[in-house]
């Protein structure tokens, strides 16, 4: 019955429509409204100025004012376009009016947690990055690289430049001391632990939620910010195939100045003589001249292949893609290779029901070296390898000096492969229950498997002693996540509108680990692929069979309420209750509220009268979020295995695993944000400023307890940290004519971090370096104390070397040529109390600057990125100085070379001070020419003979082409302690940095 009525009305409307068109007469004003590409715009509003006459365009963009001939001014407006006024002369008909897109599409709809919002209605601080503005191609293989420098307050640091190496994202300064400071990644609504590592070529856009008003809907997981990734879903219009292929080369950026073989031997012998040892390289030793750096590094290739299919019709969207990247490393025997596929689909089944799904699968293969900050790293062997020894013996085998493997063998011979496989998928259903009320259901799962295998062959000494050593570790994680929520949107009259969301989320994660090893192989052929072939099922110094499983469960309830008054005043309130198996029984529920207000001043008279702002919005937000990545089972009293040999047997034993804490809970962050969004020059210039203050409490700390309890620490929620800062981002369309356009974007952020408190009995937390020389243990390197920030270098003030005849009383008994340290506390001797603040290692400022130019078919993008106001500890320089670098030529030699700051024999022999001293703290601020690309779109008329080709683009690009810095080490961005929040920036055995040049072709077909 009802349906029939609808049908009838619909038919009548059609009829009316059909009959109306032929009624056009010469007395009418008629015309068509199109966009800049001549595509008709329907439902555009056309009004005659000074009258009440107004109409909207039809499906073909057509409009008509019957009987309105005569001079008139038409005002044409359409959402997302600049309003245009057109003078119409009497008798003029069939006017074509082209509307221009608003420079900034304030009407854009962006994804927020559990829903979408018009960008102009946002009350929180969100940075949006579209795929056009990402650092794609070349060696970019993950999301973090893609957005580095592109969003204010989002600090991306590639701490390891190896193919597939570590890269961190920290939003508005780290909150946590002992857990990760990485944000939460949500891909198409699915919370993924692997979101950072999906292929960036499939991304449509990324929203970085920065303040608590935006992230509190994610409760105990929102504390570090949230990165919402939306993948491509198919472009409007016809089916299209894009194929993109590029090849590139990487060139070493860092080249240490190294000694020749003879110079090295001379220095070693001279030092030995001074020490009363016999010559290290006696005259009988055949001195060669080997450049180990050159022998172990290379010019390396990178290639990308991508193909995508997209299609879209009235009821469905489809996107399919396949991507391949292979990057060889500039260090030999390293590479990264990834295959990935993605599917995204949506289908509207009927007026009420829309379904969709996403699927991603990828396999990544890495050949690795160990880029660790200690002497076991291949880079350490390379940098310290004696240049006076040869690589090979006459018979082609590796030369071994003192029976030790040489540096090239150490790089080429071991096998170290990690393979990561990732599959995730999710589906959703949107059901419009009644007008304004929608039910959303989504379910997804993710399976990730990481397999790492190592083999040390018999060509190496350790392999020879053990008959080859093989081991393999596999970890898998499986997640399911089911979420559903109701969304109610309603307008009460014209002034009031609300949106309310309530929902639940359930998640379960299972992590499994398995490891095994063996040694004693008859052959090197198997690598780690046949452990049973080894005669000894356990491995010296490595893996014995091991397995473990960890399970995490979460149940959450959330809600959000948005209110808008007259489209001027906007308010958002959110609330989330997270229940997690990680939280102790005394704190099982975490409640996370937030609230924000925004006011648009744009239409206020006093603002309008200024004729300055095309947009002006003030936002204020406050909220509580958490960090639930506190590990599992921490609150339980547990026992772990610890056995021993008795008689001829090995017996299992059990001992307490840790000191339990039933109060264990999330880390809590309270954030206040105030932001101002400003548009100028009709939206051509947009500026956003945000200031924020975050206070994190209940920090997860391993609080020292007396070791008489059997443990050094107990894990407790205690301590607090503060981050405050300011962010500025500017987008400007500087110039735009038919042929030429130029736009600029710029962002800069400042963050000041301050530790407010630790525990009662903890006044500081120190982190040590790893062993830098093989003869000493790690020394205090960073120190975290209230009032300071994470990653503060702590060590001695270096004061040069002690000269012949000089008596330096604070270092009694020291000899000429020994390092001299400042007696900071003036107590007359050098003790650990003289260690002092040497610098911060986390940049206080980060910035990005991009300029995009278009001229006819050419486009040129130039992007700079930088980080400022921080230092790095150049441990490589310390190591090199006393071994193979040309700096060693300038070492102290009594009576011969005394006017120098380089000690006679390094820093390890003196009983005073430490090798952690101010001499190797270097300012690391840098500006990097991160990406340059020049593309040419071949004119359509040149290729139109080939019917199925729509477009052909040829491009060249470069990455990391130039780095402007005073830093002298491998790269100012590296940090071999990158995985530790308190570790502090150190450049020690880091993968060498490189420049990349790429040439590519992109073909669009239909």
């Amino acid at each position, binding site marked *: 019955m009802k349906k029939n009525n609808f049908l009838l009305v619909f038919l009548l409307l059609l009829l009316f429509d059909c009959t109306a068109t032929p009624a056009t007469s010469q007395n009418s004003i008629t015309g068509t409204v199109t966009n800049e590409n001549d595509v008709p715009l329907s439902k555009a509003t056309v009004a005659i100025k000074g009258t009440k006459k107004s109409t909207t365009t039809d499906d073909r963009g057509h409009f008509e004012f019957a009987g309105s001939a005569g001079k008139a001014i038409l005002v044409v407006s359409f959402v997302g376009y600049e309003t245009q006024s057109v003078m119409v002369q009497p008798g003029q008909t069939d006017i074509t009016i082209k509307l221009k897109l608003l420079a900034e599409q304030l009407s854009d709809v962006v994804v927020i947690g559990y829903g979408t919002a018009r960008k102009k209605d946002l009350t929180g601080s969100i940075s949006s990055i579209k795929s056009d503005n990402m650092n794609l191609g070349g060696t970019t293989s993950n999301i973090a690289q893609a957005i580095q420098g592109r969003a204010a307050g989002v600090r991306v640091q590639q701490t390891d430049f190896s193919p597939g190496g570590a890269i961190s994202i920290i939003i508005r300064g780290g909150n946590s001391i002992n857990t990760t400071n990485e944000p939460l990644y949500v891909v198409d609504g699915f919370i993924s632990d692997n979101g950072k590592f999906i292929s960036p070529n499939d991304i449509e856009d990324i929203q970085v939620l920065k303040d608590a008003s935006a992230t509190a809907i994610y409760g105990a997981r929102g504390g570090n910010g949230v990165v919402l990734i939306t993948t491509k879903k198919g472009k409007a219009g016809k089916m299209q195939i894009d194929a993109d292929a590029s090849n590139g080369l990487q060139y070493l950026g860092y080249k240490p100045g190294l000694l020749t073989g003879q110079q090295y031997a001379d220095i070693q012998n001279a030092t030995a003589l001074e020490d009363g040892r016999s010559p290290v390289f006696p005259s009988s030793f055949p001195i060669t001249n080997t450049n180990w750096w050159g022998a172990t590094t290379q010019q390396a290739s990178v290639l990308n292949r991508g193909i995508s299919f997209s299609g879209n019709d009235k009821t469905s969207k489809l996107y399919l893609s396949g991507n391949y990247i292979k990057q060889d490393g500039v260090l030999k025997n390293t590479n990264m290779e990834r295959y990935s596929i993605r599917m995204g689909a949506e289908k509207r089944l009927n007026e009420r029901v829309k379904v969709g799904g996403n699927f991603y699968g990828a396999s990544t293969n890495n050949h690795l070296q160990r880029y660790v900050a200690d002497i076991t790293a291949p880079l350490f062997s390379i940098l310290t390898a004696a240049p006076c020894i040869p690589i090979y013996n006459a018979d082609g085998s590796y030369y071994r000096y003192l029976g030790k493997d040489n540096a090239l063998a150490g790089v080429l011979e071991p096998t170290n492969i990690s393979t990561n496989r990732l599959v995730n998928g999710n589906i959703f259903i949107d059901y419009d229950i009644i007008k304004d009320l929608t039910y959303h259901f989504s379910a997804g799962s993710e399976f990730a498997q990481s397999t790492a295998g190592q083999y040390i062959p018999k060509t190496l000494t350790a392999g020879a002693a053990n008959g080859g050593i093989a081991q393999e570790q596999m970890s898998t994680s499986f997640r399911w996540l089911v979420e559903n929520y109701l969304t109610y949107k309603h307008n009460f009259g014209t002034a009031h509108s609300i949106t309310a969301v309530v929902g639940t989320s359930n998640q379960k994660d299972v992590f499994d680990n398995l490891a095994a090893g063996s040694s004693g192989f008859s052959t090197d052929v198997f690598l780690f692929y046949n452990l049973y072939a080894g005669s000894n099922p356990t491995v010296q110094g490595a893996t014995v069979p091991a397995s473990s499983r960890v399970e995490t469960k979460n149940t959450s309830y959330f809600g959000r309420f948005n209110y808008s008054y007259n489209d001027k005043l906007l308010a958002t309130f959110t609330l989330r209750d997270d229940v997690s198996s990680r939280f102790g029984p005394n704190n099982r529920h975490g409640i996370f509220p937030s609230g924000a207000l925004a006011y648009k001043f744009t239409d206020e008279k006093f603002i309008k009268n200024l004729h300055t702002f095309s947009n002006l919005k003030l936002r204020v937000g406050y909220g509580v979020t958490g960090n639930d990545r506190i590990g599992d*089972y921490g609150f339980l009293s547990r026992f772990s295995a610890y056995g021993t040999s008795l008689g001829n047997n090995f017996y299992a034993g059990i001992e307490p695993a840790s000191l339990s804490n039933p109060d264990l809970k999330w880390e809590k962050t309270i954030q206040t944000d105030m932001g101002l969004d400003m548009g100028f020059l009709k939206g051509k210039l947009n500026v956003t400023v945000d200031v924020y203050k975050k206070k994190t409490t209940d920090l997860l700390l391993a609080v020292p307890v007396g070791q008489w309890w*059997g443990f050094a620490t107990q894990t407790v929620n205690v301590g607090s940290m503060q981050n405050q800062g300011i962010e500025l981002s500017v987008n400007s369309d500087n110039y735009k004519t038919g042929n030429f356009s130029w736009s600029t974007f710029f962002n800069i952020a400042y963050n000041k971090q301050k530790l407010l408190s630790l525990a009662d009995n903890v006044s500081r937390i120190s982190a040590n370096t790893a062993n830098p020389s093989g003869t000493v243990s790690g020394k205090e390197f960073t120190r975290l104390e209230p009032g300071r920030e994470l990653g503060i270098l702590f060590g001695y003030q270096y004061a040069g070397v002690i000269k012949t005849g000089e008596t330096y009383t604070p270092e009694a008994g020291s000899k000429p040529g020994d390092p001299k340290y400042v007696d900071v506390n003036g107590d007359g001797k050098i003790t650990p109390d003289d260690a002092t603040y040497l610098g911060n290692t986390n940049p206080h400022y980060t910035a990005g600057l991009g300029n995009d130019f278009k001229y006819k078919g050419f486009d040129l993008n130039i992007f700079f990125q930088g980080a400022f106001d921080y230092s790095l500890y150049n441990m490589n320089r310390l190591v090199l100085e006393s071994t193979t670098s040309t700096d060693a030529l300038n070492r102290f030699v009594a009576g011969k070379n005394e006017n120098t700051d380089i000690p006679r024999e390094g820093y390890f022999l003196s009983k005073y001070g430490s090798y952690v001293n101010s001499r190797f703290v270097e300012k690391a601020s840098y500006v990097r020419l991160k990406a340059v690309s020049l593309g040419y779109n071949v004119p359509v008329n040149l290729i139109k003979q080939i019917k199925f080709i729509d477009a052909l683009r040829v491009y060249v690009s470069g990455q990391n082409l130039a780095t402007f810095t005073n830093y002298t080490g491998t790269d100012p961005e590296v940090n071999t302690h990158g995985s530790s929040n308190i570790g502090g920036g150190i450049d020690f055995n880091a993968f060498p940095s490189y420049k990349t040049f790429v040439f590519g072709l992109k073909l669009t077909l239909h």
Partner: protein
Amino acid sequence: MNKNKILIFSLAVLLQFSCNKTLDPKVYSSLTSTNAFVTKSDAMAGVNSVYARLKGPAVGDNFDYWTVRHFALTDLTTDLGHCSYGGDPGQLSLAVWNSSNGLLAEDWRQIYKLIANANNAILNISPMTSITDAEKKQFLAEIKFLRSVAYMDLTDAWGPVILVTEAEVANPNYTSQPKPAPVADIEALLIKDLTDAAGVLPVNYVNNPIYTSNDYGRATKGAALTLLSKLYMRRHDWQKAADVAKQVMDMNVYSLYPSYLGLFTEANKWCSENIFSVLSDANLNGTELLNHFGPLNHPVVLDRWQYYAVTWDFWNSYNNADDRKKCYYPNYTGVDNLLYKQAPSIGAIPPAGVSYMQDVATKKYADSTGSTTYYDGHSVDILRYADVLLSRAEALNEISGPTQEAIDLINQVKNRSHAVALTLAGFTQATLRDAILQERGWEFFYEGKRRADLIRMGKYDVIVNAYLTRIGQPATISMPKNKYFPYPQAQVNLNPNLDNSGR
């Protein structure tokens, strides 16, 4: 209709929490307090973990406590141990340590780790009802013996220390700052525990009703008595020390192994001379003894570090006839074709082709017939029969001066190594004391005895300072300051009652 739909979907949203039935975590890979101590096998696992902490820090990688690092405190700090590497061991070797020395902290940590495991096992085994009384007594006696070993070592190094027993662990207050207990209080506990243990523990584990696998290496009556004797020695309670040592001898189960070098081969894990030892298996839970003790650049014992070595000064003190002098690597042609040897004089410059070693590596944990792998399976003898003989000799001398019995006891040990025997004539109590101290050095170097011996005999400052002077170093040892080490600085920071003034 719509109302119903709204209801249905609202319920779908709100009732969904049932997916996770409970948010109590499921534990797969470790035990919890509900299932850790249930059966006899669990109790045995609790006991085993106490033995396991005689070494560490990991099951498969042992360089802590009795497998290497304890020797940094007991031997490096004396006239016989030497480390040519700088840093923490170098400080100890030159007697210039302070409270932030990492090796002091490591030993403190590892010894207390054993004590914590012991306390935990006592606490959890005591209330168990699934084991017999005999089993419970046996397990608790083993644990208390092991805890006594730990407290003995702890008090040797630091004197008054924090006394933690199962009582404190039952109701822990992790932020408390207890005062260290007087040494006498700790010794009273040890005397009680060891006396009790000696009454419970079997002579050996052959056909033992509780442990059915005939294992050696578990705590025995002889071990408890020997440790008790050593404790009485430390207390200068000479008569009791001599009596208890005699008790061990009268058990007639121990004898000296015929060959000194043979005693320490990796293959000889346990013999008639072993009273209590830390055992290892090169593959399953190997130690890093060989790495640390093995000679540098040696052509047979490849790739070792000569980290814990012996001073030339001490090596030179052996008589050439003494087999124990052969338990070293004083000269060899290295893998680099250099001749490694002792310098003719301190500071001499070696000619081409020669390297003068700063110290001499010992074969004690690095015999050339053992493992070639990274880890090794050497036993470390914490208590062995030669110590019982020399202890009784020393106690007798302290009680009544030189006697033939004492001389015979010493000569038993000497004769095994073909060393020149002593004769009673000409010895005073003081000179025999010196001879015993010298003998103990030659016999027990790097067995964790030297520092305690020197202190017990009141010769720590005299002998170590004399050695330091001979090698041109400042004579830094003073008593009573150096009787005990400073408490590790990190522990002092946590508990100011650990007072380092005067240490």
